[in-house]
């Protein structure tokens, strides 16, 4: 086309564009339909001048990048969370998603066509793999292909692909779904034994590779994954070489990454001489991994050092001793790890197999190779392995097998120091009575002999003989009684001394599977069979002792068996009312109580008590003991009046008979005080408990378990009365004592910790409460296991604490765990399962996981409807929660319907002021607000705040949340001044009561800032938002609220005309919101639109019309 013609076209084109819109359209139509070709040309150009104004406005680079990303998506592949464009395919493997990234490159999950399988595709960063190295690698990959071991991730292929932007080296390997070694350790809370067993497997895998001629050089937790069945898999054999720096080549990974790997490198490796590196370097790395696995930290701290210092540390410093980290590690474990970590490789284990072998020896309690065996060392080992036999059962066994004769000196060991206070006297008492009876019978024989003597005058020898025999009989009886006593004492003192820590164990602790005493007991119980045919009463007495010991160990079925046997023997031989029989009955009843078979316990104890009262009298120690036992059973059953009666009476007797300051009397006082407290009879409880405590402190000492228990009870009383300061003081004292005397893990210690945590929580000392709960939970998990009901209760409480602190991310895993266990152990229909579902739904909802939350709530609602009924408060609370969630999802009709119903019923069933009703009220109020029904919302929310103020107090979290909602309402109605006043006041309180990091406080800050922006108080808004952002950046940097805050900050800056400062935050805020829009609750959706608008307005005010227009398009499209 000639230049002239073209110029005419241009002219016409531009002048046509000056026309009005309607005219332009006509012009186009007319021009295109006409004969003039020039006009036709112009017409067609004009036709394409309308429409999308953003055509070609975005730079080509962005277009290219986006189309790259999109083409991958179009092929049915999802991108990854970072928004980076994924390559579609590499080398014939179809990329699915990103698994991880490292210094070397990116690892994708990919699909192979032939054979059809999922693989892990590791793509090396271009620039890192020079052709030289690639050639070397391909050579080595043949060897890699030969590696076939369960513990090594198989490599399928190593190659390069051409993606159009240069050669892309990669290799495809076995896809392993698992966790890295350190994560696995944490997640599964492995015990020492399990950790060691895991390491053995790793060593075996490494050994296999060594035998195939390959050294790993980069063994670290990130390279050791553990799959779902607990099999460790080692990654990247030989690959480490690709990242190796040749001498003189300055290109290397970022120094942070290098140092990270450095921690696992042997001294010869860090020096860099490749000739010095052999299989023993891998052994060293295994040692570091083992150390870390056991200790939870690295042997040397190199991360904070510069490279040269780090190298020096590895080469010269000694690792922190393992025994200083945990006591169990002293001795063999420490030795093994030490030998693996030897700096001189000649002194290390020569191979991974040797290391594995020594670990195995340790696990089998065999002497390890790492130490030269001396005689005493062997004996020590033997002793530990067969401890029980050496100390306990053997002696008992000897007693039973050899007969009755046994030297008392041998039998009785003075082990009183390790005995804790007894709560059961029956054993000793029974044994004594038993022995006494035998002696009585012998005395009878003697008397008979004496009588006979008068008759048989002539046969003096015979008489003498008779007397001798009687004497012998008496002697034997004495012996027997002494023996029985000895046996019993032996069993009690020696055997049970080993279980002395368990003596005070309550019904809620798990039996220790390793305890050798149990083996001893089992053998003793078994050997009693048939050995005491002639001495059934001795048998009964032994069974009684053994049965009570079983009970102390928590082995209730065995205990019951023995005690029942003892009882039936005595019943048969001595009769129903015999003191010994009663003693057995008492013991059995207590056993039933431990097993929560309360009706049986109650019946039996009543019988015992009746008889004992009748036969022995009210003041007899045995009678008193049964009284206490029965009172405890009544307490458990909730029959407080009966319990109170018994305890009052027994206290009176004890005071009279034993005196005021005797331990029994004092214990009685405490028990009665506890009973008063449970019935909220505070005025009666306090004097009793204070008196008991001071007397016990004086008589027994501050560290005596009885004293500590009373302290605990009194502290709990103060707590119930609301006297927090005193309560806290006592709890702390009791806790210190418990820790000292009973140890950190004792159930009694944990009880106090739990109570104290609750107190802290009520006082608002969240950090202290959290600290305690965490400790308790840790201990319970360790001692009782994850599934024990006590552990679950603590888990639940801790998650609720997190909830009130706004730590939703920490709450979630705990609540999820509780749900998982309840589901598994109680099934899907159980009310407790429903509770767990409800509790987990809450953090989900607050984190924006609406679908999951809804599913849980629907489930919980269905269960509660079915099991508890449609009008049960719990069902209704779940309903109210579901309504709130509907609102957040934008389903307002459903939200309103559900909230209305729940409120209506709750008002009827629980009254207008009940906390449950208030939950429904706030749910409905906020629904009304989001529907724009402001008048109704205001009436409800105002009432809510008033009621909560009255019932919970001015500074309770519930009241503060209500006020926040009211403030938001005012803001929605445009009542900015009122909103500002309310929210401002609220913020002051929030700061003080909740702290600036609390989500509720952040919400108030954001709302206040919005209002202030409306009022053009830009500087004030800036201050408030900065405060919020400060907290958000630390606590929830990835949340939509953080980016919302940025947008608000930007707006406040723009309002002050600080455009340069405003620009980056506004854009970052908008972008951040856009990416997280799925987590924004529905009725807050406008924050995204607002943030886009703010960017546009910024550029407009700034005078950058071009950019403003561009942004306007972008925003509109979104």
């Amino acid at each position, binding site marked *: 086309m000639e230049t002239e013609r073209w110029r005419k076209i241009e002219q016409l084109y531009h002048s046509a564009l000056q026309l009005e819109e309607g005219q332009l359209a006509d012009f186009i139509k007319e021009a295109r339909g006409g004969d003039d070709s020039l006009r036709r040309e112009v017409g067609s150009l004009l036709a394409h001048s309308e429409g999308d104004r953003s055509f070609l406005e975005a730079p080509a680079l962005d277009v290219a990048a986006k189309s790259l990303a999109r083409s991958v998506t179009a092929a049915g592949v999802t991108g990854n969370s970072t928004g980076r464009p994924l*390559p579609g395919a590499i080398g014939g493997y179809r990329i699915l998603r990103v698994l991880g990234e490292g210094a070397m490159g990116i690892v994708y999950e990919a699909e192979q066509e032939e054979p059809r399988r999922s693989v892990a595709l590791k793509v090396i960063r271009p620039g890192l793999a020079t052709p030289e190295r690639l050639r070397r690698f391909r050579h080595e990959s043949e060897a890699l292909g030969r590696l076939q071991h369960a513990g090594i991730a198989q490599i399928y292929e190593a190659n390069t692909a051409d993606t159009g932007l240069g050669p892309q080296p990669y290799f495809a390997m076995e896809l392993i779904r698992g966790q890295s070694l350190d994560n696995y350790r944490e997640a599964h809370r492995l015990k020492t034994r399990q950790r060691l067993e895991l390491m053995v497997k790793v060593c075996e895998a490494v050994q296999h590779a060594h035998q195939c001629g390959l050294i790993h050089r980069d063994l670290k937790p990130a390279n050791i994954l553990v799959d779902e069945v607990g099999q460790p898999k080692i990654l990247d054999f030989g690959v480490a070489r690709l990242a190796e720096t040749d001498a003189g080549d300055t290109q290397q990974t970022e120094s942070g990454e290098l140092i990270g790997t450095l921690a696992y490198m042997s001294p010869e490796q860090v020096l860099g001489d490749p000739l010095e590196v052999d299989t023993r370097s891998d052994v060293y790395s295994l040692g570091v991994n083992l150390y870390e696995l056991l200790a939870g930290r690295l042997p040397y701290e190199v991360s904070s050092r510069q490279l040269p210092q780090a190298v020096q540390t590895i080469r010269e410093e000694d690792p922190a001793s393992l025994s200083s980290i945990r006591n169990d590690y002293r001795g063999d474990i420490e030795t093994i790890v030490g030998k693996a970590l030897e700096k001189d490789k000649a002194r290390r284990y020569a191979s991974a197999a040797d290391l594995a072998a020594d670990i195995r020896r340790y696990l089998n309690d065999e002497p390890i190779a790492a130490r030269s065996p001396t005689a005493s060392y062997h004996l020590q080992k033997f002793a530990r392995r067969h401890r029980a036999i050496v100390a306990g059962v053997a002696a008992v066994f000897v007693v039973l097998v050899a007969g009755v004769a046994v030297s008392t000196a041998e039998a009785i060991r003075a082990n009183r120091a390790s005995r804790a206070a007894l709560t059961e006297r029956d054993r000793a008492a029974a044994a004594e009575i038993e022995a006494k009876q035998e002696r009585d019978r012998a005395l009878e024989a003697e008397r008979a002999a004496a009588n006979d003597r008068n008759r048989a005058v002539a046969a003096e020898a015979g008489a003498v003989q008779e007397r001798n025999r009687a004497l012998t009989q008496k002697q034997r009886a004495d012996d027997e009684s002494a023996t029985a006593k000895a046996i019993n004492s032996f069993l009690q003192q020696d055997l049970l001394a080993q279980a002395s820590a368990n003596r005070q164990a309550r019904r809620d602790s798990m039996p220790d599977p390793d305890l050798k005493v149990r083996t001893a007991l089992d053998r003793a119980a078994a050997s009693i069979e048939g050995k005491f045919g002639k001495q059934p009463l001795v048998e009964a007495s032994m069974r009684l002792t053994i049965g009570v010991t079983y009970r102390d160990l928590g082995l209730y079925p065995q205990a019951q068996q023995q005690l029942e046997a003892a009882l039936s023997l005595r019943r048969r031989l001595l009769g129903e009312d015999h003191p010994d029989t009663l003693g057995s009955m008492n013991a059995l009843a207590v056993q039933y109580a431990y097993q929560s078979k309360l009706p049986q316990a109650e019946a039996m104890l009543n019988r015992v008590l009746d008889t004992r009262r009748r036969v022995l009298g009210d003041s007899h120690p045995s009678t008193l003991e049964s009284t206490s036992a029965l009172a405890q059973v009544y307490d458990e059953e909730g029959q407080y009046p009966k319990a109170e009666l018994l305890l009052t009476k027994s206290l009176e007797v004890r005071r009279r008979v034993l005196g005021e300051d005797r331990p029994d009397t004092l214990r009685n006082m405490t028990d009665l005080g506890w009973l008063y407290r449970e019935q909220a009879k505070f005025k009666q409880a306090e004097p009793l408990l204070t008196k008991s405590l001071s007397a016990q402190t004086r008589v027994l000492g501050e560290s005596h378990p009885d004293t500590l228990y009373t302290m605990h009870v009194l502290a709990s009383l103060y707590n119930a009365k609301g006297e927090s300061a005193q309560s806290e003081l006592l709890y702390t004292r009791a806790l210190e004592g418990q820790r000292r005397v009973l140890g950190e893990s004792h159930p009694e210690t944990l009880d106090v910790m739990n109570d104290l945590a609750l107190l802290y929580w009520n006082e608002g000392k969240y950090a202290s409460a959290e600290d305690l709960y965490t400790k308790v939970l840790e201990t319970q998990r360790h001692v009782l296991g994850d599934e024990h009901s006590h552990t679950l209760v603590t888990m639940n409480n801790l998650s609720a604490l997190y909830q009130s602190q706004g730590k939703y991310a920490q709450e979630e895993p705990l609540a999820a765990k509780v749900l998982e266990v309840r589901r598994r152990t109680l099934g899907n229909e159980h009310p407790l399962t429903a509770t767990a579902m409800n509790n987990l739904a809450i953090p989900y909802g607050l984190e924006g996981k609406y679908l999951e939350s809804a599913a849980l709530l629907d489930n919980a609602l269905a269960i509660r409807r079915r099991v508890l009924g449609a009008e049960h408060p719990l069902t209704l609370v779940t309903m109210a929660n579901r309504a709130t969630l509907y609102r957040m999802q934008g389903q307002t009709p459903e939200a309103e319907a559900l909230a209305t119903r729940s409120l209506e019923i709750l008002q009827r069933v629980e009254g207008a002021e009940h906390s449950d009703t208030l939950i429904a009220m706030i749910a409905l109020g906020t629904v009304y607000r989001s529907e724009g029904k402001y008048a109704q919302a205001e009436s409800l929310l105002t009432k809510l705040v008033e009621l909560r103020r009255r019932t919970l107090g001015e500074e309770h979290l519930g009241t503060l949340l209500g006020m926040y909602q009211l403030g938001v309402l005012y803001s929605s109605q445009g009542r900015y001044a009122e909103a500002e006043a309310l929210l401002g006041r609220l913020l002051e309180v929030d700061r003080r009561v909740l702290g600036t990091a609390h989500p509720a406080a952040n919400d108030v800050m954001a709302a206040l800032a919005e209002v202030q922006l409306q009022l053009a108080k830009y500087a004030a808004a800036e201050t408030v938002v900065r405060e919020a952002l400060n907290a958000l950046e630390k606590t929830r940097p990835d949340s939509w609220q953080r980016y919302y805050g940025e947008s608000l900050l930007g707006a406040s800056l723009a309002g002050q005309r600080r455009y340069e400062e405003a620009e980056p935050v506004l854009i970052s805020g908008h972008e951040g919101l856009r990416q997280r829009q799925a987590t924004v609750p529905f009725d807050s959706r406008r924050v995204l639109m607002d943030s886009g608008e703010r960017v546009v307005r910024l550029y407009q005010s700034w005078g950058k019309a071009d950019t403003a227009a561009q942004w306007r398009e972008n925003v509109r499209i979104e």
Partner: protein
Amino acid sequence: MILSTQRQSSPHQLTGLLQDWSEGRQDALDELIPVVYDDLYRLARRYMYDERPGHTLQATALVNEAYLRLSDSANPDWQSRTHFFAVCGRIMRRILVDWARSRKALKRGSNEPPLELHDAVAVTGRSGVDLVAIDDALGALAVQDQRKSQIVEMRFFAGLSVKQTAEVLRVSEETVLRDWKLAKSWLRRELTREPFHGN
């Protein structure tokens, strides 16, 4: 595609060449390109595979970075920078179009759908804008009107603003805007046309 030999560029060389080119010496461009190419290529690759796209500000920052690296940053000459951007437009076009062509070839090999040729009138950046097609169309436009083709190169491939483009070409901003508008209409028409060119 020009495969450059590895050349170290000295800052003065760059400025000198840019000066020459701005004074009208076309062959200065031929010397400039290899100098800049490597850097841009590496940067572009990094951008696409490693950096986060989505910030429209980033693309220009990339070219800026190249300029800072290659030029005498102790003495930033804004005019020189503008010219540099113009050159980059040319180079970026080559890099990206080559890449787009190679991807098309790749895709035809495997069983994946080709880069979609969406309605080019539709939204930029969110639907497919076929770079290869644009390159072809731009070539045709250059025959018709060289300045307009240059403007598109600078604005679209190098990300220059209207103001900067005006500076480089020594025309008014209004002229740039008018040319830009017409060029876009032309390209849009060209892209929606059937392969057969009828006039």
